[in-house]
């Protein structure tokens, strides 16, 4: 159980700056995901927390104690690697037992041949055996204990790696993209298992992934990292619904959010592709991006925008309609809940969205506040006529 505090963390490899000042407090027992595109520095951050990599500047505090200069094993954090990093020459049992043997046996007791003769070795080995068997039973890998990692499937290796992590009851778990080597079906299954493990252990979990779906489905909080910076930290729903930056909006959610080129008029109204929306903003006039999630796009002949259907994706339970529009580089994606009522490819469709679905961002990518405009009053002259 640990609270981990990261303060103003910088990391540079020679001239390449990887982390540009990261501040983050991870609560005790929390499941937090570090998510971001590859190369954003999330794995480096995890390695610095683990102690495998020194930071250039900044501090890591674990449970109120500075971790600077503390060896990785002394930090008592467990790590599960993307490649599992199991010792190929050791059996599953020995793999799981390694951290216990390192901790509980002296160097002399670990020595080959003579180690067995050292006093106390047998007793300690018996306790280690019990601990390993308990963890193996918990992860349902008891029948595999005698096998070598080379004889296991990807999912089984994953479990062994998790077993090696939990057997020594660490203060926190660090996961470095642990599911990315598994096939899609197994990944979904392991997702549920890791979330269940967290509920069971109630320990701090730090989970690094580039897959936003993993982050959304498992974690209590998500920290979105892009280009070496933490852009936004919050609950999955908040990150999805209320992104502070266009990069967050575009990274989170599949299919990607639709980004329309827009403009803030001098009276505060927002304009998209020449159409004025029922949305106003206090932001100064100028270029902006108007983003709308696919499920908020409504196909409707009376919609303010129109285009041609260029592609259909029918997933059975739902479908996505890709609409090519003038003035847009990428097709607009709209979700249709009833796949039986899809337009044909090549058909012209009208579409629109409610003003409250709009997430607008300024030219720098920062979120700008929007609110629903009051109904437009008819000009007085018109009323007179």
């Amino acid at each position: 159980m640990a609270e981990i505090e990261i303060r103003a963390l910088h990391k540079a490899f020679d001239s390449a700056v990887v982390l540009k000042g990261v501040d983050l407090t991870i609560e005790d027992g929390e499941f937090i995901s570090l998510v971001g595109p590859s190369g954003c520095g999330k794995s480096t951050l995890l390695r610095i927390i683990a102690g495998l990599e020194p930071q250039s500047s900044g501090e890591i505090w674990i449970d109120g104690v500075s971790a600077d200069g503390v060896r990785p094993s002394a930090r008592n954090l467990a790590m599960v690697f993307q490649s599992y990093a199991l010792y190929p020459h050791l059996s599953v049992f020995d793999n799981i037992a390694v951290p216990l043997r390192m901790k509980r046996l002296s160097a002399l007791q670990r020595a080959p041949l003579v180690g067995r003769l050292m006093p106390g070795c047998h007793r300690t080995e018996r306790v280690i055996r019990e601990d390993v068997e308990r963890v193996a039973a918990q992860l349902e890998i008891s029948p595999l204990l005698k096998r070598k990692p080379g004889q296991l499937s990807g999912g089984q290796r994953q479990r062994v790696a998790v077993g090696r992590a939990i057997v020594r009851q660490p203060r926190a778990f660090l996961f470095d993209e642990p599911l990315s080597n598994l096939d899609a079906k197994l990944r979904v299954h392991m997702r549920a298992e890791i979330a269940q493990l967290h509920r069971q252990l109630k320990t701090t979990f730090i989970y690094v992934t580039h897959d936003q779906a993993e982050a959304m489905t498992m974690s209590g909080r998500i920290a979105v990292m892009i280009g070496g910076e933490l852009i936004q930290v919050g609950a999955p729903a908040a990150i999805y619904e209320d992104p502070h930056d266009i990069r967050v909006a575009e990274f989170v959610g599949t299919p990607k959010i639709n980004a329309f080129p827009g403009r803030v008029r001098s009276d505060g109204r927002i304009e998209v592709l020449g159409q004025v929306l029922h949305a106003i903003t206090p932001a100064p006039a100028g270029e902006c991006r108007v983003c709308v999630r696919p499920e908020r796009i409504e196909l409707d002949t009376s919609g303010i925008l129109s285009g041609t259907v260029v592609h259909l994706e029918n997933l059975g339970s739902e479908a996505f309609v890709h609409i090519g529009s003038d003035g847009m580089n990428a097709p607009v994606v709209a979700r249709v809940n009833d796949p039986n009522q899809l337009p044909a490819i090549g058909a012209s469709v009208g579409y629109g969205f409610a003003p409250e679905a709009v997430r607008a961002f300024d030219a720098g990518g920062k979120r700008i506040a929007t609110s629903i405009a009051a109904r437009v009053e008819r000009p007085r002259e018109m009323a007179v006529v």
Partner: protein
Amino acid sequence: MSDAVATLRRVATTPGVHASVFAGAFTAGRSAAYALAAPAFVLMLMMLIGPLAGVIALSFTDYQLGAPSFSWIGLSNYHEMFADRVFWISLKNTLTYVAIVVPGAVALGLGVALLIQSGAGLRSWYRTTYFLPVMATLIAMAIVWEFMLHPQFGLVNGLLRAAGLQGHSWLQDRGTALYSLCVIGIWQAVGFNMVLFLAGLVSIPKHLYDAAEIDGAESAWSRFRLVTWPMLGPVTLFVVAISAIRSFQVFDTVQVLTKGGPSKSSEVLIYTMYTEGFEFFRSGYGAAVTVVFLAFVLLLTLLKSALGNREVHYA
């Protein structure tokens, strides 16, 4: 190619001819395969298996180099050899040489490789330097060693004298000649073993060291025991086998520096074979010594392949 495709298409579209045509094609393919393999097979017979069989056959004769005739004498050469004191001295010296050079060259090669791998700078410089003795002709290098080990003006004795110690007649003393050759043997083999170990070290996945560090392997020694040594298993086995075979073959330093002396103290198997076969022209007896030598090499090779299948771990 297109002809073959056309034939296949014709065959495929003509019902009833499938079986016979394919059977014919199969026999034709088979004889073509034999024809294609034949040159390699004949060459292998002539160059590898033939000479070996020749040597074994020769060891049962009294053939002398250049003699017009020979007769089969059965196991007489072997009887004579096993009764000969020189053969046993030679065998003992060879085994001593192997027993010293193999552990020495393997341990030092591994040590140097680990040092080079862990250091950041000058890697290629160190690699090249340690590899120099492998690239240089050992005969030329043996002459350099002869100067270095010279009792009066040699560098080694000079250094010993400077340190206030007494020098030795390294190569002329019965007690030290073989061990001096061992040192030269180790010096020559370290570079080769180092290169093999370096290749092995590079192929160890880095994340295993990360895992070891997290699991509590804090000292360099415990990381070596947990990751490096087991992962180097297959390479080590290969290096040991190669070093042993090369040590069994020791000849050039003996020939240049000691000629097996003084009083047979550095006599080794190949040198015995050389003197018997090419100085005393007793080819039959020399062949018998060679057969003993080959038996040891074969034993080593079998040992290596028997162990090799157990030692490889696939991640």
